[in-house]
């Protein structure tokens, strides 16, 4: 059994999750501060990829980064490489599709953050940078982690937009999801089942992780409770 699709899927999902992680936190942080009307508009635009059919996202992507698209042709002309039909094309597709998941989960965490913590820090004279990294981020940790895991899971399972911009080239652009489809078309059920089980195993691990994070997130913090990080009472 050729494990390339697993390697390629993990590679694409990891890189796009890395990008989404920073973009999502950045967008959630700044959009939370914008005026209401602008926030509503930006929110709709940024969440759109979550509800659009992935094929529509793929279509827009092809029209933009394809060899004839405005971005694709410019990159090809100046830097000399194609943005579609390569393994890294999938990164563009999965980043766009997973971004809303990260953005919305993190925004939810920021919105449920107790702002009096921020205000008290400011009146004490602590800088906004310190407060962001040492107070806001640690207190939104579970939400941010849950968003990251969800984004990673979605990136691993992405099929529609990915297949449109990468096609299916065994050993070069094949991912788990495109491989399962190809094997089914070829009638190779035995191998298809193997990949299906690989997929099930990964999804299972991801969902258990998300549930564990969410339980920790919602568990009430009582007085004298054991600290979960240090084990101190």
């Amino acid at each position, binding site marked *: 059994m050729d494990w390339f699709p697993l390697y390629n899927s993990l590679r694409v999902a990891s890189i796009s999750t890395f990008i989404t992680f920073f973009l999502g936190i950045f967008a959630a942080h700044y959009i939370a501060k914008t005026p209401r009307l602008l926030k509503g508009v930006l929110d709709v635009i940024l969440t759109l990829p979550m509800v659009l059919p992935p094929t529509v996202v793929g279509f827009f992507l092809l029209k933009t980064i394809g060899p004839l698209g405005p971005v694709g042709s410019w990159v090809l002309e100046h830097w000399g490489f194609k943005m579609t039909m390569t393994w890294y094309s999938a990164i563009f597709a999965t980043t766009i599709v997973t971004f809303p998941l990260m953005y919305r989960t993190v925004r939810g965490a920021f919105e449920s953050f107790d702002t009096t913590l921020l205000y008290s820090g400011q009146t*004490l004279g602590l800088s906004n940078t310190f407060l962001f990294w040492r107070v806001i981020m640690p207190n939104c940790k579970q939400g941010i982690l849950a968003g990251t895991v969800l984004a990673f899971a979605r990136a691993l399972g992405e099929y529609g937009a990915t297949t449109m911009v990468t096609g299916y080239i065994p050993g070069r652009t094949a991912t788990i999801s495109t491989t399962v489809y190809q094997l089914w078309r070829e009638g190779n059920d035995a191998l298809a089942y193997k990949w299906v089980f690989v997929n099930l195993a990964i999804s299972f691990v991801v969902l258990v992780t998300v549930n564990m994070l969410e339980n920790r997130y919602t568990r009430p913090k009582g007085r004298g409770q054991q600290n979960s990080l240090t084990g101190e009472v």
Partner: protein
Amino acid sequence: MTILVDIKKNLGNFKLNVQFEARDEILALLGASGCGKSMTLKCIAGIVKPDEGVIVVNGSTLFDSKKGINLTPQKRNVGLLFQNYALFPNMTVEENIMAVLTRVKKAKDAPARFRSLCERFYITGLERHYPAQLSGGQQQRVALARIMASDPSIIMLDEPLSALDSYLRWQLELELIQMLEDFPATTLYVSHNRDEVFRICDRVCAMSAGHAEKVCSTEELFEKPSSLAAAFLSGCKNYSRIETRGQDVVFAKDWGIELLCAERVPANAAYIGVRAHFIAPVRAGEGQNIVPCRVLRVMQDVFSTIIMLLPQGAAPGGNDYAKIRMEIPKEEAKGIREGDTVSVKIQPRDIMLLKR
């Protein structure tokens, strides 16, 4: 050390309009919830920006709409204790306080200063604890220690005791009074509890619906409130609209009776107020300042009996003002039943003349 506040802020159907000055004292901002007390503190701290006005602390301008001055909260050096204490939950007591000493004060002797704060606020032994592991009182002490670590020029306390049950509350109040005595500069104390304000504060600024009354001493507010709103906040229960009938005589419109007052009736007096425990039943059915009433309801309180009365002269179907609440010792209330007729005396010295 002084603070001068004169600010306006328009929040849709709520308009905040506050002026007061405070010296080295504990000044209370007393008002019902939603009257703008906390908003005033947030304006002083720089968390909320007023529409116009000035805020000056110890001669330095924190906010001045005309000069375009609006310092960030970090530059104002104003300590604000939140109702929930707002300790950083992800940091230990030590980290919470050391963050201020090392990041803000850049103190070379930070550990030594931390030690002395721990002793002063009785938190030695709790350094490695997280806020969730502390009791309410311990959290309050840590929060105060953290504020003192930043060397504030004034401190402001936002309902520090209202989230607590009554037993714990009394403990914390005693601790708080002791710690405030050690702080030499101005303290603003926000509360909706008149008893707490009377015990803790020197002077009081009564607030209602975004508007601040003139600052007066706590004794003055409770003995001689000048307005209806101030009398409300001081806990007075009985009011009637009035019509002036003579130099020291008023007609209580809601009670339908003429009453003699102990002092000259000011021209702007629109209401009278009488405290529930200054009203007492009398035998004689008629006479000066005697109000014949029907007993509407008799309720047993812990140490007294509360009797709701309707004056016989009250207009039929009268409003809420018409009812009189009387609080008397339990023995004196024996024999009074619902539906009885009882006469009560209102002493001229107990009548508070109030402007609108």
